[in-house]
């Protein structure tokens, strides 16, 4: 569990960090909290000769209103996202998911930017940010670019970041009217485990007719990247959210995902759990009681 030796740099601005990255290329690794990176470095999965810590760069951890949306600095810690009033009130699904990351200790040190850049298919903050249709701002030597979070994830551990770019912030657009949401995470235990399947739903329904006019759904740990369940979304839109529809939505999402078997669960089990969790998440978002499975 020892770390190999490495050089360390703690730049005080993004410009300085970008300069270091250009100079050192693939030998440099960015560190936010480091709760994922240090585990990988201890297991020698990654052995960077240089670690560039982003913690001394000011303003990278702010959570602030952005027009009618919200701007979250990449270095915002999970604990701060979990208890930020603006997120709890308007984008509760993200605050709720942030409170399910790892343990209190991990949430106090791990950051949302680190969670996204680590690009685990099981990242807890990814499904809620996908249903919220968040965008990410990447900054490089030649300026900034903005892309939907969905295209940020490329594969397990792989993102759209080029070698000389830094994830600076996450933008959440305005919430579309009164919406119902749920994030369900199923792990082998309730804390300190990655999801074996997770589901985020964000639904808008006509209060009188109960017809679902807008559905957003994302799944975690059941594909090479966190994924939107777009076919299931399309299926739900225009329908009354009744038992028969919810049952079919679960089956559709289970078909739509693409899980693998690993140490946590078999592909078949994951698929079946997507079916169950999608049904429960829709019911939970509608205020119905669901069994205490998942967290």
């Amino acid at each position, binding site marked *: *569990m*020892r*770390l*190999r*030796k*490495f*050089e*360390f740099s*703690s730049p005080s601005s993004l410009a300085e960090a970008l300069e270091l990255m250009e100079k050192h290329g693939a030998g440099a690794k960015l*560190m936010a*909290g*480091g*709760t994922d990176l*240090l*585990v990988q470095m*201890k297991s020698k999965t990654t052995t960077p000769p240089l*670690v560039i*810590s982003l*913690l*001394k760069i000011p303003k990278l951890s702010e959570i602030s209103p952005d027009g009618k949306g919200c701007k979250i600095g990449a270095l915002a810690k999970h*604990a701060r996202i979990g208890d930020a009033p603006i997120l709890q009130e308007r984008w509760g699904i993200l605050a709720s998911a942030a409170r399910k990351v*790892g*343990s*209190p*200790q*991990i949430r*106090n*040190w791990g950051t949302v930017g680190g969670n996204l850049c680590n690009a685990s298919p099981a990242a807890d903050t990814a499904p809620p940010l996908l249903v919220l249709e968040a965008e990410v701002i990447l900054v490089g030597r030649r300026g900034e670019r903005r892309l939907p979070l969905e295209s940020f994830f490329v594969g397990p551990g792989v993102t759209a970041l080029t070698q000389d770019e830094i994830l600076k912030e996450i933008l959440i657009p305005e919430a579309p009217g009164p919406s119902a949401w749920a994030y369900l995470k199923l792990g082998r235990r*309730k*804390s*300190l485990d990655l999801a074996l399947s997770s589901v985020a739903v964000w639904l808008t329904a006509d209060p009188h007719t109960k017809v679902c006019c807008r559905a957003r759904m994302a799944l975690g740990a059941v594909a090479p990247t966190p994924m939107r369940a777009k076919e299931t979304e399309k299926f739900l839109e225009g329908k009354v959210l009744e038992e028969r529809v919810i049952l079919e939505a679960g089956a559709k999402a289970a078909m739509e995902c693409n899980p693998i078997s690993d140490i946590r669960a078999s592909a078949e089990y994951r698929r079946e759990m997507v079916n169950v969790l999608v049904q429960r998440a829709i019911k939970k978002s509608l205020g119905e009681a669901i069994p205490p499975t998942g967290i």
Partner: protein
Amino acid sequence: MRYPVALTVNGELYELEVPGHRTLLDLIREDLGLTGTKQGCGNGECGACTVLLDGDPVNACLVLALQADGKSVTTIEGLSKGGKLDAIQEAFIAKGAIQCGFCTPGMVLSVKALLDRNPHPGQSEIREALTGNFCRCTGYQKIVEAVDSLIHHS
């Protein structure tokens, strides 16, 4: 190469020079000789190395010493004052909330962070605050009872 780091540990300022790969846990145990903080899994899963960083519990094994520059650290040694144990430590003793004792420093610090933030937590909040600390003797019930006894006495 060694780099300068300045941090406050249990109220005392330390200025040291450490290599990049030094963890906060190693700084505390090896450089400062404060061995109350334990190394367990080394991967942020067991919570034996829990310390308070600016008041919040973190796994010292997953924090680089250099990342703690300018911050304030509380270890288990920082809780007793003038040879007198902290009320949380007294409650753990009174309720027998210790078996082998290896998880105890981390448990006590997680409880301290909880009570500093919320002096009257409910059962579920107590349990939630301890989710990052493993007791391999599985003495959880007594630990929760110790915390409970503090709430009802204050």
